[in-house]
């Protein structure tokens, strides 16, 4: 799967095909006990190619739920959601899994590498589920590790790596299926200052390669790397600014 050529087009000439996500009036409501919790309470949002979005907000503001919905891990309760100009509001679990496997890359705060698999096998794991017939898996995996500067550790297990190294491997895993969008939930939350800087620079370089990023963060310094900032409060977007 190659990148959309439109991804390289200038901002000013954005067309419909540059739009990745278009959410309108999106709601996600949980029932906790007898109470209704509106984790997303009417979100209108458009995400385009070559954006680096920082989603900020206090905990409970709905930013994680937004990430889950964008990552096809959760379904909206109401509203409309378009992905690549297709209505994906009510698609079933298997279709959502396929989109996760082929179009979206995930990076988590706690890395979430599988401890029993080697570094390169962790990176290759999404290929197992993408149902694309790839013959040169190993080379792809090594290329992705090369991209994040971790090729020399390919046969190690995650437990032998530092936190920063693990997050690099996790990013390589997110890259393996050449996603259009990478979603990261507090990707630097478990890292020290030095590693935080390295990871954010890595994200910034991915943006230059045409990958769109959305990062949930508490950290203003991390948010400063982004070119668009979305603040959430009580399930609503209360600030949306581009820099």
């Amino acid at each position: 799967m190659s990148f959309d050529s439109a991804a390289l087009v200038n901002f000013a000439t954005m067309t419909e095909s540059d739009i990745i996500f278009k959410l309108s009036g999106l709601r996600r409501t949980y029932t906790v006990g007898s109470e209704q919790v509106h984790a997303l309470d009417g979100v209108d949002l458009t995400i385009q190619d070559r954006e680096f979005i920082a989603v900020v907000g206090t905990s409970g503001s709905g930013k994680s739920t937004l990430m889950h919905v964008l990552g096809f891990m959760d379904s909206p309760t109401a509203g409309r959601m378009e992905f690549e100009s297709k209505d994906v509001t009510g698609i079933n679990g298997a279709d959502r899994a396929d989109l996760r496997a082929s179009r979206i890359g995930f990076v988590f705060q706690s890395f979430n590498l599988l401890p029993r698999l080697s570094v390169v096998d962790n990176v290759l794991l999404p290929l197992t589920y993408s149902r694309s017939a790839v013959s040169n898996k190993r080379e792809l995996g090594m290329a992705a590790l090369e991209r994040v500067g971790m090729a020399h550790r390919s046969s190690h297990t995650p437990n032998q790596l530092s936190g920063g190294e693990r997050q690099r491997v996790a990013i390589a895993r997110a890259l393996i299926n050449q996603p259009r969008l990478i979603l990261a939930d507090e990707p630097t939350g478990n890292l020290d200052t030095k590693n935080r800087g390295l990871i954010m620079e890595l994200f910034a370089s991915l943006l230059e390669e045409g990958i769109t990023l959305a990062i949930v963060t508490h950290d203003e310094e991390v948010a400063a790397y982004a070119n668009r900032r979305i603040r959430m409060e009580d399930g609503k977007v209360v600030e949306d600014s581009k820099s």
Partner: protein
Amino acid sequence: MNLLSDIYSGGINGLREIWANKVRSFLSMSGIILGVAALVSMVGIVQGMLGNMRASFEQSGGILKLEVHSAEAPEAQQHIAGISPGMTWRDIIAVQNAIPLAVYTTPIVDMRYERFIAQGRREGAILHGVSPDYINIGSREMEYGRFVADMDIELKSPVIIIGSHLRDELFPSLDSAVGQQLRLRNQVYTIVGQLAEINSMPGQRSRFNWENRMNYIPATTAMSRYNGNDVVNEIHITADRVEDLPDLIEQIENTLTRTHRGINDFEIRTQEERLLELKKLENSFTFSLGGIAGISLLVGGIGIMNVMLASVSERIREIGVRKAIGARSHDIFIQFLSEAIVISVLGGLVGLVASVGLLSVARNLIPAGESISLVPVSAMFYGFLFSSTIGLLSGIYPALRAARLDPIDALRYE
């Protein structure tokens, strides 16, 4: 990606998980191992023993043989039962002359247990007086010399055909005892034949083969030299084909009723009853052992389910990660089901190996155990099939639980 490659990669993954949790996996396998080993070795032992019984059934003439035994006359004939001469040599002559369907006919003059003396040694063995036809009923074979001949019957010759037991005990240094003499009730008999030894398996000897303790003299010799009358204990008759049996039975009945002057003081036994007994025995063994083995495999299956449930709760986070990066519920289901199948298949294979060990022990411990096969193919096939099925079934519920996990909840799980 098709189902086969899913199962293949699931199997590889399963092996990795099993290797990562060696002790736990072995414990969960042990139920299946014991179940399969018990099933296969028990069925193997029973098959061997029943095979023995079948072989001895065939050896003694099989389904084509009829036996005529003396019996009490019916109530209505009790007061005149005395006019019957009973079973005598005349019955043999009558059957031979009057019934063409009777292919082979021999009397059994039962001398029971006798003491034989030769070259200063003594040994007890069983002695029967028979006709030449005896060797054609069943499957005894001569090793040296000849069996009872027509001439012996005619002349009431003092000749004897011995079995391997007597040769071993009286003439240990001789391979063939033909031509030697032995003493029996102070009379000298010449050994004219020696029967081939009966072994369930070549090269091994069973002390329990009573056939090898049998020795034979001409029926007429037995009657005249011992009993002083012409009474015979049994008459054995064979037919050529199973279809002839009903007619043959009727004709024997008619003929003997005539020679017994109308008195029904005999009974004709078919081997059908023995065959039915044998089949009944086979069935009851199969069902009772099958039941026991089934229960133990069921317990093994519960063990696997238990371990798989533990494995699922231990790896909730992993399931969340896999789902987040694109695994469908179906993929997770196959992954955990494959693990259960791998455990049960491995357990089954180890069980099969263990059963070979158990069977070889049984062969050495059980009397006449030589007929027990070390590799009872059909029992192994079904044991393995059954254990794999149990593994499959017991893996379904844990795999469903894993597949149904919500990725967000699973990722939050600590």
